[in-house]
């Protein structure tokens, strides 16, 4: 009875883990198939689909768009978000909860609402179908991740280090450079990685703001998935997963922030 219950429990947990992993695990093998339809298990082995993707002009331009937008958005969100997080951590002021709420709310706003709102506003400002528009929109999405990440690492800095440094005769700027910044750096870096991945994977807003010239890799995938499913999509997906994995490894190397 007891043993049966335990066996059943672990069976359920194991199946859940399989359920979680299955979709991710099948993507990469599928990209090596020699058939023209997506099959799992894959048939044979070929790198043709990768060659096809890397050689195609539209994929190349999408890749460049994605990289430019993600790097710019990550840089902008990291600078702006880190500054805000430091101030939020260090000071008490009126309206702090409101500011905090504002900085984090893009995380809980349905993306479709943001997408149509930005579409309406950005079209008036001539930002639709520009990389700048995408950068600004993705920065909005990324700021909360940077703020959370930096706040977490700032919370672990011993607060008496700064008075100690000032007491030893260091200037404020010198103290910031030599004491504060190195200590919060892991949070800043993993915030930057989060920001990059947020933009890199984003599709809904991009669907509204991008055109053929400015479209990103996720839009290409979206179009492929909606029209014809071929193994080239799996090859792109595998490349994206690889890049995400690299990013994750980087961010975990800096510090485990999410937990």
């Amino acid at each position, binding site marked *: 009875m007891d043993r049966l219950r335990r066996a059943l429990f672990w069976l359920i947990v194991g199946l859940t883990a399989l359920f979680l992993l299955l979709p991710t695990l099948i993507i990469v093998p599928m990209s090596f198939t020699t058939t023209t339809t997506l099959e799992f298990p894959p048939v044979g082995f070929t790198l043709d689909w990768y060659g096809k993707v890397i050689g195609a002009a539209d994929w190349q331009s999408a890749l460049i768009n994605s990289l430019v937008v993600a790097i710019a958005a990550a840089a902008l969100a990291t600078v702006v978000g880190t500054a805000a997080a430091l*101030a939020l951590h260090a000071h008490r002021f009126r309206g702090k909860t409101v*500011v905090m709420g504002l900085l984090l709310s893009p995380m809980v706003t349905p993306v479709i609402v943001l997408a149509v709102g930005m579409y309406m506003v950005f079209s008036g400002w001539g930002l639709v179908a520009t990389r700048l528009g995408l950068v600004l929109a993705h920065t909005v999405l990324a*700021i909360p991740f940077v703020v959370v990440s930096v706040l977490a690492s700032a919370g672990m*800095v011993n607060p008496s280090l700064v008075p100690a440094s000032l007491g030893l005769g260091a200037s404020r700027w010198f103290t910031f450079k030599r004491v504060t910044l190195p200590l919060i750096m892991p949070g800043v870096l993993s915030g930057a990685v989060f920001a990059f991945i947020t933009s890199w994977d984003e599709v809904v807003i991009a669907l509204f703001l991008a055109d053929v010239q400015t479209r990103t890799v996720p839009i290409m995938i979206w179009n492929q998935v909606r029209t014809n499913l071929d193994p080239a999509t799996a090859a792109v997906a595998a490349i994206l997963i690889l890049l995400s994995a690299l990013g994750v490894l980087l961010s975990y190397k800096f510090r485990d922030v999410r937990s």
Partner: protein
Amino acid sequence: MNVSAQDGAVPVSARAPWPFRVPTAFWLIAPAVLFLALFFVFPLLRLVAISLPGGSVEYYEQIFTTPVFLRVIGETFRVSLIVTAVTVAVAYPYAYAMAHGGRTVLLLLTVALLIPFWVSLLLRSFSWIVLLQNSGLINDVLIAMGLIEKPIRLIRTPFGVMIGMVHILLPYAVLPLYTVMKKIDLRLVEASSICGASWLKGFIRIYFPLSLPGVAASAILAFTLALGFYITPALLGSPRDMMIAQMIAGQFNEQLNFGLGAALAVVLMVLTAIAFGLFGAARAVLQSRGRSKDGV
């Protein structure tokens, strides 16, 4: 250490891990606030304005009197509720195993949880299409097991949408449950059994009530996120099972009825805000439980 005597400087806040004065703080926060005001708050306000042309509520009237809109809103709620229930039910044993299964189990299950968390939702929906299609792995396995004779339709059905949604929401549901469960002392369950309670009785009377804050948090989080789903239902569902996010997109992309689309977006925003407000309220209530009942 006190530095105020140093150079007559403004005292640095005791909590500050960095050395600047309060006015500096203002200049540090200002860019972020300004940026979000311009590119986040303003677009949302603009939607509200577009949805109320000349102060008229006609679009809202239209939404709440036209059967097709009501059906989509109802469908969104229905799917979100079912998906939330399934997600939390699946997340519960998983989180339990993470919380009480020992270090190796925790590590393995965390990895299994975070790998899909890091792969974009678009790619996972894509993967589910491949898995669920007629010639996909799921149908192959079911046929091989002799459960079905010919492939059954799994994509372009509400079932397909729900599978995809549960998969995406599961990590969000597991984490709050795990946080609460790992604080539950298993000796309470031992105490229950030595008091004469069967396993089931102990679960119902002791463990489950103590895990309720986690259940509430994960259910509301999952529900809030489910309401706004766009990619998964668009890829895995049929147009007949449309959810509100798809309808909003449709008003902007195809119908070009911006006012109505904006009104729908505002409705979704309000619903999400209400659900999230419930989240905060539920947490506050559950946290205060058992702390001061006697004092009142």
